[in-house]
């Protein structure tokens, strides 16, 4: 990235208190998102990707807290802002779409009332003007018959339509950054394809940046330009989509790519990653992936590797990932 990034997360650490003990679930995470760029934050459950996303919007509530780090958005540290200032940013410059559209919409208000509320709060529109704009937004997210749908309640809509409504609300204020946390995970594949296509179109039209949180490598390959891979609260690898999929540098990334079944490869055995994700309260020492890693040696058990550059865009945190692929210990 040549320009100053739109979003610059630096050394973020988030802790939760569990049974009186502080558990670090995000540990020293740094990454950037450029203006207009789509970055995927990838990892399995418990890797800290959603907590990272929520930290950006200041949505971490006790017993959780951001213990350390900076989140610079257009040069301004969001962590230094008060709640009132943060509210002006949330929904305006940065918007978020969540996984489950049913739980993010209020069941007792019509779709139109909910979109209108966002328009009133953020753009000062009221009454007829807000309603007309809500209809326009529904049309923008390709909901058929928006004049009728705007008066319907969330339960009257299908899952795919609800997610379109969420996107319409997120776009109400033309955000510069859209954070989408597993936006298609609860949807069927054909609906997922519709929503991903819609996000692509809207991004091209509005020029917004997208931070896509997902566990699905297929979705990553479809939408992202750059990828940040997280494991057990840390970034283990970062690179362009081509680098991550063609020359994965971290054994975890490589393992994930190998373990996904692919269409057309037929019946057969897969190559899973052995073991399971560690408990954040009992993180392994050294490299956190070492108990599951085929390459792990003494050093991996003792010392935690840091992210080291492999190319201008590619960084890997692994003792075995030298500047050139497979060149062994640096």
């Amino acid at each position, binding site marked *: 990235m040549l320009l100053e990034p739109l979003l610059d997360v630096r050394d973020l650490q988030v802790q939760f208190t569990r049974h009186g003990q502080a558990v670090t679930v995000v540990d020293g995470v740094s990454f950037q998102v450029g203006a207009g760029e789509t970055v995927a934050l990838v990892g*399995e459950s418990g890797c800290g990707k959603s907590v990272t996303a929520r930290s950006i919007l200041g949505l971490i509530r006790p017993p959780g807290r951001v213990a350390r780090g900076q989140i610079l958005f257009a040069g301004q540290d969001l962590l230094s802002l008060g709640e009132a200032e943060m509210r002006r940013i949330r929904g305006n410059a940065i918007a978020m779409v969540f996984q489950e559209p049913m739980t993010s919409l209020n069941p007792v208000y019509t779709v139109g009332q909910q979109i209108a509320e966002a328009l009133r709060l953020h753009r000062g529109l009221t009454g007829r003007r807000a309603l007309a704009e809500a209809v326009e937004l529904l049309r923008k997210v390709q909901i*058929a018959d928006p004049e009728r749908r705007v008066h319907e309640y969330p339960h009257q809509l299908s899952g795919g339509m609800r997610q379109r409504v969420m996107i319409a609300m997120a776009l109400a204020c033309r955000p510069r950054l859209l954070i989408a946390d597993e936006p298609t995970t609860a949807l069927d594949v054909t609906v997922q394809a519709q929503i991903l296509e819609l996000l692509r179109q809207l991004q091209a039209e509005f020029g917004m940046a997208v931070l896509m949180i997902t566990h699905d490598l297929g979705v*990553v*390959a479809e939408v992202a330009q750059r990828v940040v891979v997280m494991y057990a609260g840390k970034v283990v690898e970062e690179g362009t989509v081509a680098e991550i*999929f063609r020359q994965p540098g971290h054994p975890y990334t490589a393992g994930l790519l190998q373990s996904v*079944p*692919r269409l057309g490869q037929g*019946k057969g055995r897969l190559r899973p990653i052995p073991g399971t994700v560690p408990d954040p309260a009992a993180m392994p020492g050294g490299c956190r992936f070492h108990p599951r890693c085929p390459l792990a040696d003494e050093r991996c058990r003792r010392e935690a590797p840091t992210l080291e550059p492999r190319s201008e865009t590619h960084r890997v945190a692994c003792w075995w990932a030298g500047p050139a692929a497979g060149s062994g210990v640096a």
Partner: protein
Amino acid sequence: MDGNLQPILQVRDVKKHFPAGRRRPPVKAVDGVSFDVYPGETMGLVGESGCGKSTLARLIVRLLAPSAGTIRFAGQDVTRARGARLRQLRRDMQMVFQDPYSSLNPRLTVRDIVGEPLLVHGLARGRELERQVGELLEAVGLRAGHARRFPHEFSGGQRQRIVIARALALRPRLVVCDEPVSALDVSVQAQILNLLQDLQQRFGLTYIFIAHDLAVVQNVSDRIGVMYLGRLVELAPAQALFESPLHPYTRALISAVPVPDPEAAARRERIVLRGELPSPARPPAGCRFHTRCPLAVDRCRTEVPTWREVEPGHWVACHLAGEGEAAGKGVSAAVPVAATAR
């Protein structure tokens, strides 16, 4: 499948209609489905939410009774079995559910969970039960020592192993797996898929494998059936289904699966389906897919397509299938890459 092999399961024109209250049409969750399953094979069933695949699974293992049609297991009518015959059927057919968190009783130890079927059917108790539970746990990649623990002490993948051990306790011949890996992380999903294949070899199991994820289904299946709104629209050997799908819905489904390969993702043409899934209480007349089909012609709106074998083992319900270009290459060309939701 061999032509002379007898099917282990025969499903014939099975329907399940759920009443939806007075003055409301019933929900036709499954509405006329027929297929055979052969011993030792894995028959995959795919389809999106509401297509009836889970209802069909429950009909097969007789957790539900069909509204019409017959289901025969090893020649015996499942739907009318009672008493001793029903008990034997319950041993022969087992089910693995999606959510390993809600399908295990949190108050029971793993020993009680896995041993319960043996106890209920009077097959083992005391030390013999202990021994068999230990063997089952080892068969699914756990340790005999895990028997004393409770479900909450295990991860999602390990819990699904416990569920599988319980399903295997009675030495079933047919195991119906309903979304067995969709609640699991990618790396763990692969472990369970491999385990299921190993166990199939070792115990000579027949599987019906239901999932919404085509890549997963294809990884384990010999043959695959595609369901849409309560009906099978296509059924074919797995390879044929992916290499030469005949039904426009199958094509759309395949093209919608995100591919974990950025170059392939950029290259391929995507068929984005229009509109919303119709209600199974009021399915469209004619071909049920016609409201969303990019190829639909007048005939599709009025006439229900017959379920026919276009090539040996390749079944499809589409008026246009097999008519060369019309249903063949034409599909992707005829559909705009990003159709709008109308």
